[in-house]
Each structure stands twice: as structure tokens, then as C-alpha cells.
């Protein structure tokens, strides 16, 4: 294989076309199979995603339909079916509520986290690439927002502007984009000194081209890990807001809200109503955390 004859070619070998950006992002995710923690995480998250997509097929009943109150898991339903996870205090089927609630949580968590990422990435790129005053101002604003304990910030915002889906998304964007900004900023500061960025600058590419097409794709590793972690945090947050009564409006199921509505029945002998959504939230967050852990492990290996 090794060619030892000294040759001098005047025309260099044609450089293979670099793989497309999408391809590269997918490849870094595909490496995940090398980590069992990451694989389990991926299976959990994909399982919940599948459940959310197939909600109309999986959920046996209307999640808001009152039937038999206080039924335990696996008890028979009047129509001949089974309440696999029992019913709640109003007689609504728990399985259907978990499934539909999961869809709601996943949709809001994804939209909110993505939106926070758009804002955080743009701010971070600007702060890290332009530096100087742009950096000072963006960093200061981020520090102000990050100086609030997160939950205090959410309570203040939601109590002021009201609980609605849009406000929850906005609150998440406001509270978590500074953290994303910080990561992107430090990655940008580092990547901006690389040869390919300097080459692009010499070619006369615009700043935004360089930021979005040269720097951002090369920062993808840590960002994918952070994205998974943040999906977990956002899931926790949406649940917490529901729990505190600041979440998505009832009666549509929402895991945090389900816990709050039924937790007083734990002591009355019906622990399943509150514990099942609590386990569901924890499991989904665990999936995201394990996924992030696996991705980090794989990234460190090469």
C-alpha cells in the first residue's frame, strides 16, 4: 500500500468534495451507536417521539373524557377495554392523557428549545466574531438574565404576561438563550482563529457567510450535546410551570399539570395518578441526558 517511490507531481490531487453540511451533522449523530448510554438515551427519546407522532393511534380514549373515576391500572373499562394505567380522579384514562400530554410536552419543548437556539446562536456568533462593543453589550445582557435564578425568572415572566403556549415559548427563549449564547461565543472565539476562517476572510466572504457556513458547522459537536441537555431542561421547565399552575391551560393533558391535579390523592391511596406522569417526565429527561452523555463520550473519543 505504501508508495515509497519519491514522485513530484506538479498538479496536486483533486481534493475530494467535502461532505455536505447536513451529511456531516448526521454523521456525528450516527457515531452514537458506539456508546451504550447514548444508544439507550436515543431509544428512549425516539420511543417518546414515536408515541407523540402516533398519539391518535395509541391513545385508546379521548384524554378529556370522564369515565370511571379512581380506577387502578389494568382495571377493566366499561366498554370492554382496559385502563392500562388506570384513570384519574375525574375518570379520565391515564394512558391517553400520558400519550397526548407527551405530544404536547415534546412539541413545546422542541419549538421552545429551537427558538432559543436560533436567538442564542445568532447572539453568540455576533459576540464571538465581531467582539469589541457588540460582545460587551451582548455579554452584559446575558449576565443580567443569567443572574436570575431560572425558576424565579419564569414565575415573574409568566405571572406578568399570563400562561399560554406562546408565552411559555417566549419565556424559555428569554431564559435559556443567554446560556446558549455563552457556549457559541466561546466556540466562535476559538474557531475564528483557524486557517479556513482566515482563508474565507481573504476570499472576501461576508461576515455572516463566515459565521453561518464556516464557523457554525464546525461548532456542531458541543452544540448537539448542549441541545440534547437543553431539551431535557426545557421538558423539566414546562412540567414545572404546569406543576406550579403557570403552565398550558387545562383540561388538555400536560404532565406537570396532571401531577398537581392529582397529587393530593397519593395519600388517599391512589398514588398511580400522580406518580405515572412523574415517571414519564423523568424518563423523557433521562433519555435526553443519556443521549447527551453518549454524544459527549463519542465526541471525546476521536
Amino acid at each position, binding site marked *: 500500500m505504501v508508495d515509497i517511490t519519491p514522485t513530484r507531481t506538479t498538479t496536486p490531487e483533486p481534493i475530494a468534495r467535502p461532505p455536505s453540511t447536513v451529511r456531516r451533522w448526521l454523521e456525528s449523530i450516527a457515531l452514537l451507536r458506539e456508546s451504550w448510554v447514548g444508544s439507550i438515551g436515543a431509544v428512549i427519546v425516539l420511543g417518546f417521539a414515536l408515541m407523540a407522532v402516533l398519539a391518535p393511534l395509541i391513545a385508546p380514549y379521548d384524554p378529556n373524557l370522564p369515565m370511571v373515576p379512581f380506577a387502578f391500572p389494568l382495571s377493566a373499562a366499561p366498554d370492554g377495554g382496559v385502563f392500562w394505567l388506570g384513570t384519574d380522579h375525574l375518570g379520565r384514562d391515564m394512558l391517553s392523557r400520558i400519550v397526548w400530554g407527551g405530544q404536547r410536552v415534546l412539541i413545546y419543548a422542541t419549538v421552545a428549545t429551537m427558538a432559543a437556539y436560533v436567538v442564542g446562536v445568532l447572539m453568540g456568533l455576533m459576540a464571538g466574531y465581531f467582539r469589541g462593543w457588540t460582545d460587551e453589550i451582548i455579554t452584559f445582557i446575558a449576565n443580567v438574565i443569567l*443572574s436570575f435564578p431560572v425558576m*424565579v425568572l419564569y414565575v*415573574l415572566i409568566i405571572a*406578568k404576561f399570563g400562561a399560554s403556549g406562546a408565552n411559555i415559548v417566549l419565556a424559555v427563549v428569554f431564559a435559556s438563550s443567554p446560556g446558549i449564547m455563552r457556549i457559541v461565543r466561546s466556540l466562535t472565539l476559538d474557531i475564528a482563529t483557524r486557517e479556513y476562517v482566515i482563508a474565507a476572510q481573504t476570499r472576501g466572504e461576508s461576515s455572516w457567510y463566515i459565521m453561518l457556513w464556516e464557523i457554525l458547522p464546525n461548532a456542531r459537536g458541543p452544540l448537539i450535546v448542549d441541545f440534547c441537555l437543553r431539551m431535557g431542561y426545557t421538558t423539566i421547565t414546562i412540567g414545572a410551570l404546569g406543576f406550579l399552575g*403557570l403552565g398550558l391551560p387545562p383540561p388538555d393533558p400536560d404532565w406537570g399539570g396532571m401531577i398537581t391535579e392529582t397529587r393530593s390523592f397519593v395519600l388517599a391511596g391512589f398514588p398511580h395518578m400522580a406518580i405515572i406522569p*412523574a415517571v414519564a417526565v423523568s424518563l423523557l429527561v433521562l433519555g435526553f441526558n443519556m443521549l447527551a452523555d453518549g454524544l459527549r463520550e463519542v465526541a471525546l473519543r476521536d
Partner: protein
Amino acid sequence: MLNLILRRLGIMLLIMLVVSMLLFFMNEGDPKLVARSVLGPFAQDQQLEAWIQQNGYDRPIMVRYIDWLVRLSQGDLGDSIIYKVPVNEIFWDRLANTGILAGVTFLVMVALALVLGVLAGIKEGSIQDRVISFVSIITTSIPEYASAVILGGIFVFWLGWLPGTSSMTAGFNPVELILPVMVLTLYGFGYIARMTRASMAEVMTSQYIRTAVLKGIPYNRVVMRHALRNALIAPFTVIMLQFNWLLSGVVVTEYAFGYKGFGALLLEAALRRDIYVIEACGIVAVFVAVTTQTIGDIVYTYLNPRIRFS
């Protein structure tokens, strides 16, 4: 060093100033809304106007802000709308309760996290490392409101060992503190443990530890005297940042157990538009968070000789 401290304090002061402005404009920006909150939903427009005039809310907002800031610095937090008493009368008791909860949690959590982190990090990749790391991923995935009902199910409903609420109606009862502390610790220790583990693992593979072992110093002594000291620098900042997180967790946990603390007060105030209480809670929360962060930064710099002498 002094320069650094002064700069940190300056930034801290600036952040507090901006935060106070945000809180003030958010809550008292519109005088009509303030009057509405104070007088209730049934007040007539005329009454609102009269109240605005009487209480000086017809002055320009910047004047009112500075006035508010001056009163704040003199310790006057205004009156609670719900409780009809000065905020000072309820606020500090609540804050002290939270201080007890957060303080006990902090001690338990940090002790547990450091021990587990060091045990895991001493031998990277060993079975004890894997078990500890895996357990800490699981516990950091269980948010407070989930563990509150799960642990409540186990210890209150099933075993009957602990009380389910922590309202301390019959005076201070340490037993009522157990569940909230467990809930906060469970969710919080994993992060510090992981940081400690990473830091410890890094130190254990370093040249000077190898030298110490090769020199024939007993392994326990290498760990205790050489490794720990360096390994605990990095987790220190993380630990100080935990105060910020702890204040977050406290809001949810206090609500979950009916504990009469600052978090529960903030939530109640926010839901019922008790603006002066909201402002007091917001300012104090940010003050605690920023102060611990600043201390963390300064001490970290002091502990890390590479930064100290550069």
C-alpha cells in the same frame, strides 16, 4: 487580585442596578395597573385616579424609580397587598425559612456529591465509577416535582415514615424538613458529583500523583494530601453556582410541600399580583445569586495559582 475583586464588585453592582430597573418597570411601569392591584378589581376609575395622585404615581417614571431605590436602600420594602402589612414583617421570616431549607440541603448535597465524585474519580472506568456516574445521571433526570410525588408515595403513603407536608404549623419540626431536603438533594447532587469526578480523574492521571505514588507514599495519603486539594478547585465554582439553582429548586419544592418559605411567597405574590412582595423577592433572589457567583469567581481565582500569578 484587588483589581479583580473591585472589577467583579463593580459588575455585580451594575447587574443589580439593571435588575432593579427591570423589576421596577415590569411591576410599576403602568401606574393604573399598580392602583388596580392595590385597590382590587372593583375599584372605580375615579378611585384609581385618586390613589395614583395620593401615592405620587403621577410623577415621571424615572423619579419614581429613584425614589423607590432610595427607600429600598433604607430597608423600606413597601406594604404587602395581600397581607396588608409591611413587606418587612413577612418577608424576612420567609427568607429565614428558606435559608434553613437551602442551608441544610446545601450541606447534605455538597457532602454527598464530593464523596461520591471523589470515589468515582479515583479510579476512572472502575465499577464504582460506572455505578456512581450512572446513578447520578438518573437522579439529575428526576425534577423536584416528580421526586416529590414519587418519594411522597414511598415514604408517606407506603411506609408511613414521614409527614407529607412541611407547613410547620405546630412550630419548627425537623422531621418535616427531611422530604424537601431529599427532593432537592436528589436532583442537585449529580451535577456537582460529575464535576468532582471529572476533576478528580484528571488529577489522578497527572504526573505529580504518579511521582508521589512511585516515591512510595501510601496511596491513601496521596489521595488525601496531594490529589484532593487540587481536585476540589474546579468543583468549587460549580458549588457556588448551585446557589442560583437552589433558589430555583426552592420555588418548586416549597410549593410541593407547602413549606412557608421565600419561594412559596414569591409564587403566591406573583399569582395574586402582590407587586411589592414580588419586587422584594426578585431583588433578594438576584442579590443572593449574584453575590455567591461573585464570591465563587473571586475564590476560584484565589485558589487557582495559574490565574493568581499570571
